[in-house]
């Protein structure tokens, strides 16, 4: 076991996690629960029941000001102008060269935009927004808010008993609710591929809400370890591993996050490069890989073509508890990115066979409703 070099901060639920037997590890500058019962059991519980995740390390930012959606569109390639009130969209904060500085969720919330950014990158993001947005735009870092995620096929039934009405939300829709008189900002979204919710709650109230949720026998607390294996099965990239400032949305295969109007009109950071990559294809592309055998192939392993030439690297990889086999994602030369392509992986001097496969590895279970669009 290694000592941590820098002091870590405590989450509002720190004592709550420890009381439930969590093993705490430093992550993104915080002491965070990596597991309770075990990663495999927690993973499978989330896929079959409901898992409660503490993601309070993430940054919650509330923006306002004249011309807000247009201003944010200079940094984010998503179509924010067409985003309806109470709707959210996956997007990215881009550098001027089109590289990804962070990935995030953006919600139109009345006159405001509410952004949830990654914990490890939030300080840098705040600096970027301060430097690159016009003076008319202001934002508040909501440090007093905690963030919970409730994910899994029973999440909707559980949360609707505590907070009636949440079942009416469609995937990627959000609204303000009340629980025991306390305001909760709830969105139907998540990072596991399951149906579920993310709940922004005042830090002083989060333990009471977490208690009420786990009082339902369908809910168990889930650590960061299972969060990582769940999102990998769902094909969702993790910033700092599958995405960084050297990757563009096109390389990362996140084109769905760039609307038609934005592709045609540009006007966002790195637009010339990104539109060029859309037209001509990127040099490398993020793909999913099914690995032969049982041994996990992890981040950093080399990806080789059939002649043994290095064509990329694994950026996330591990054992898939749902599939009972190793899966991975990584970047490969675009010519070798088609599903079905056979590739080799090299880890600690050992070769593995792998095949490019469409993602997600495990189908998404998002609940899209037609009404209320």
């Amino acid at each position: 076991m290694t000592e941590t070099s820098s002091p870590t901060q405590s989450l509002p639920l720190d004592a709550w996690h420890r009381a439930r037997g969590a093993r705490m590890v430093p992550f993104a500058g915080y002491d965070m629960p990596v597991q309770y019962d075990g990663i495999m059991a927690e993973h499978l519980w989330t896929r079959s029941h409901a898992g409660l995740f503490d993601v309070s390390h993430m940054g919650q930012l509330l923006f306002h000001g004249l011309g807000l959606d247009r201003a944010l569109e200079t940094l984010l390639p998503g179509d924010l102008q067409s985003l309806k009130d109470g709707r959210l969209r996956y997007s990215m904060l881009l550098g001027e060269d089109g590289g990804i500085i962070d990935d995030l969720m953006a919600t139109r919330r009345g006159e405001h935009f509410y952004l949830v950014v990654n914990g490890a990158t939030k300080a840098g993001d705040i600096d970027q927004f301060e430097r690159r947005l016009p003076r008319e735009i202001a934002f508040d870092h909501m440090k007093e808010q905690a963030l919970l995620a409730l994910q899994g096929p029973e999440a909707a039934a559980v949360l609707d008993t505590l907070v009636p009405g949440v079942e009416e939300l469609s995937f990627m829709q959000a609204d303000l609710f009340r629980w025991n008189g306390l305001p909760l900002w709830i969105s139907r979204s998540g990072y596991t591929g399951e149906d579920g919710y993310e709940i922004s709650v005042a830090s002083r109230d989060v333990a009471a809400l977490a208690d009420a949720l786990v009082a339902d026998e369908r809910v168990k607390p889930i650590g960061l370890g299972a969060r990582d294996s769940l999102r990998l099965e769902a094909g969702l990239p993790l910033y700092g591993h599958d995405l960084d400032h050297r990757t563009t949305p096109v390389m990362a295969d996140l084109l769905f996050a760039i609307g038609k109007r934005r592709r045609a009109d540009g006007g966002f950071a790195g637009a010339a490069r990104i539109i060029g990559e859309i037209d001509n294809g990127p040099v490398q592309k993020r793909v999913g890989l099914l690995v032969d055998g049982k041994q996990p192939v992890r981040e950093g392993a080399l990806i080789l073509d059939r002649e043994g030439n290095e064509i990329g690297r694994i950026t996330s990889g591990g054992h898939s508890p749902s599939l009972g086999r190793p899966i991975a994602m990584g970047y490969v030369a675009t010519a070798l990115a088609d599903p079905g392509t056979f590739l080799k992986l090299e880890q600690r001097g050992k070769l593995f066979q792998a095949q490019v496969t469409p993602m997600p590895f495990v189908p998404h279970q998002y609940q899209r409703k037609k009404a209320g669009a």
Partner: protein
Amino acid sequence: MSLYFTGEHEWIRVEGDTATIGISDHAQQALGDIVFAEVPEQGRSLNKGDEAAVVESVKAASDVYAPIAGEVIMGNEALADDPSLINRDPEGEGWFFKMTLADAAELDGLMDEAAYREWVKTL
């Protein structure tokens, strides 16, 4: 029969001039859910400290080192199909490999069971 432990959380069960090697209950708990194990081939000659086996959990890969010198008699083939045996019965059915005991004097520096269990409590 005598049972010894190393500071790397391996156990060695000695019967005559044969030693059976595995990882301790403490080690499997620290690793978490084990999803893969690779044991050495029969006939492989090991020096003390050689990388002899690999064990991987959902979280990470770890090497198992030869705690003594000798020749591999057999690996535990059951681990290939069911590596979770190591979680369920780490100091029994979840053994890794058997080897000859080339030099009994190498056992002198190892902990006995009581000393190991006491030491683990301090970690």
